């Protein structure tokens, strides 16, 4: 009995120091992740800040319940259909391009003999990943500006009339896809490449003994090895199917009003509702829908994958 108690205390003592060690991190999670989750009841309120009182006091005591009023306004908004369509189409395109291109690049570099070339390719393709959207927006502008841009002067020298890019919404789906591929492919390529390099060399030896062609090696060894990583990435992307990178859609388009019909996504919409119209409830309602649907998709897809014995176990 006494010994058991002693052991118990020892375990608790040990855990106490682990709890202490991870306390700052836990506090960060509570303040910056979980308080906002509680605050999402904003979506069901007409928020009014009581001067001198904090957010939660105002939220609970000062703001009246409005039920699904905010959601009603959200769906009555004339823009919302377009915004959801843009978000879904961009994410679908990014999902496909963001898988196929990096996988091809990863397989490509893994076949290059020269270590120096391999390193050069990796470093240059990964570089855009480390540039901020502001910088990206500047260099995109250097290409696409109507009177100064490189693209228009090249077109001009061939006798072709230049484009007013920042006023032509129909061109932007292509531009944004290209920019996104340029910025994120390197990182994804490195992930897939790392996975490729972890393949057991014996598999390749066995393939060489069997006299398998490179095509067969890719088809039967490399792609199956990458399958799990691809699945996990796809799953995460599906969970974020209604979320987009705010910087890409807000900065790279220079928030140009005439492009909104093809470039405004849910995140930009939510941002504007909050910062330009100070409409907390409306913005929170849109966030709640965005997060809720993403969550449902993620959980469902994960369950389906698990059922089929896929790599969904990662979550």
């Amino acid at each position, binding site marked *: 009995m006494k010994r058991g108690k002693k052991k118990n205390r020892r375990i608790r003592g040990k855990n106490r120091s*682990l709890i202490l060690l991870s306390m700052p991190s836990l506090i*960060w999670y509570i303040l910056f992740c979980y*308080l906002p989750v509680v605050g999402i009841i904003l979506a069901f309120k007409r928020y009014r800040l009581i001067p001198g009182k904090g957010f939660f006091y105002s939220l609970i005591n000062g703001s009246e319940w409005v039920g699904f009023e905010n959601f009603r306004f959200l769906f009555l908004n004339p823009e919302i259909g377009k915004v959801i369509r843009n978000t879904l189409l961009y994410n679908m395109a990014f999902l496909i391009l963001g898988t196929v291109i990096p996988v091809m690049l990863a397989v490509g570099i893994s076949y290059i003999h020269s*270590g120096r070339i391999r390193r050069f390719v990796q470093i240059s393709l990964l*570089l855009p990943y480390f*540039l901020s959207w502001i910088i990206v927006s500047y260099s995109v502008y250097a290409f696409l500006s109507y009177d100064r841009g490189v693209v228009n002067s090249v077109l001009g020298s061939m006798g072709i009339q230049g484009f007013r890019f920042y006023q032509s919404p129909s061109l932007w789906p292509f531009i944004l896809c290209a920019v996104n591929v340029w910025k994120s492919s390197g990182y994804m390529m490195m992930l897939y490449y790392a996975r490729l390099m972890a393949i057991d060399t014996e598999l390749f*030896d066995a393939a060489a003994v069997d006299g398998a062609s490179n095509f067969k090696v890719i088809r039967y060894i490399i792609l199956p090895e990458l399958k799990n990583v691809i699945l996990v990435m796809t799953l995460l992307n599906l969970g974020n199917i209604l979320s987009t990178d705010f910087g890409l859609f807000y900065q790279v388009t220079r928030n140009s009003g005439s492009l909104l019909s093809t470039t405004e996504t849910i995140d930009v919409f939510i*941002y504007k509702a909050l910062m330009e119209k100070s409409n907390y409830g409306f913005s929170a309602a849109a*966030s709640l829908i965005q997060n809720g649907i993403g969550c449902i998709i993620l959980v469902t897809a994960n369950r389906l994958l698990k059922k089929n014995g896929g790599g969904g176990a990662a979550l």
Partner: protein
Amino acid sequence: MNIKRQGKRNKKKNNGFQREQGYISGLGRTADIILSVVLILISLLALLPVILVIIISFSSEEAIIESGYSFFPEELSLDAYRYLSGHLGKILQSLGVTLLVTVIGTVLSLFLISTMAYALSRKDFLLRKLYTTIVVIPVFFGGGIASSYAVNTQFLGLKNSIWALILIPACSSWYIIVMRTYFLSNIPPEILEAARLDGASDARIFFRFVIPLSKPIMITVGLFEAFSYWNSWYENLLYTDSNHSGLYTLQYVLYNMEKNVSFLTSGDSISGLSAARVPTESFRMALVVVIILPILVTYPMFGRHIKNGLNAGAGK
């Protein structure tokens, strides 16, 4: 057939360090050259936007006004940099802010990430399951920016505070998971056990043994965090009013100059330069170059660490 067998022999010879060398030997010489050329071309294409910005910053203003941005400007000039060095006041201020945020932020986020990752990696930690759930949920569910904004400004009082720039992006579930995986697979449990038998506390074990043993992952995560702090602008956009421009990071200064070039120079009419003589176009790009220079310089040096870190992440 002959070639293949040779390939096989090569592989036998290389066996063991083939992975380290990082390639799959299967291509003939010609195919290797073609593939290399194609990939080098793609890489150069990826570098073009950065190269263009650098060239514009060295172009003369007349050349830009005359014939637009160009990879081959008619006239080179250092005017933009000269102008930049003459107007360092606000730039140094925001460089200071950016450096402060980057240094404090990186240290803080390494601390938050590694301590939580360590707790999650300890199989005898009673709250492990609960803490794992706490860390994983925010990956796919959050309060949205309206709620976060209200909490951060009206509850935590972070509006127009430098702490908004440091604290809000400080922790990341993704890096916690990566680091936990690293701890689990790279720190021999025997060492921890031995230290524990010597009576060392968990905190002591963590700082004395775990951190030194996980230098590679610390460097990788630190590097990614440092870059992301250096690149930060979003927190400024949300949490800093325009009458607190002393808190602007370099990126956010650049963002403001997109609309208003005079942002940096407003108020110094003494400089005597007429508006026409300000090298507006090249000046912006010069600032871009100044901001990406630290990234361009440090990043290739840490290439190996970045790769190792990604390896650890992919091994998940």
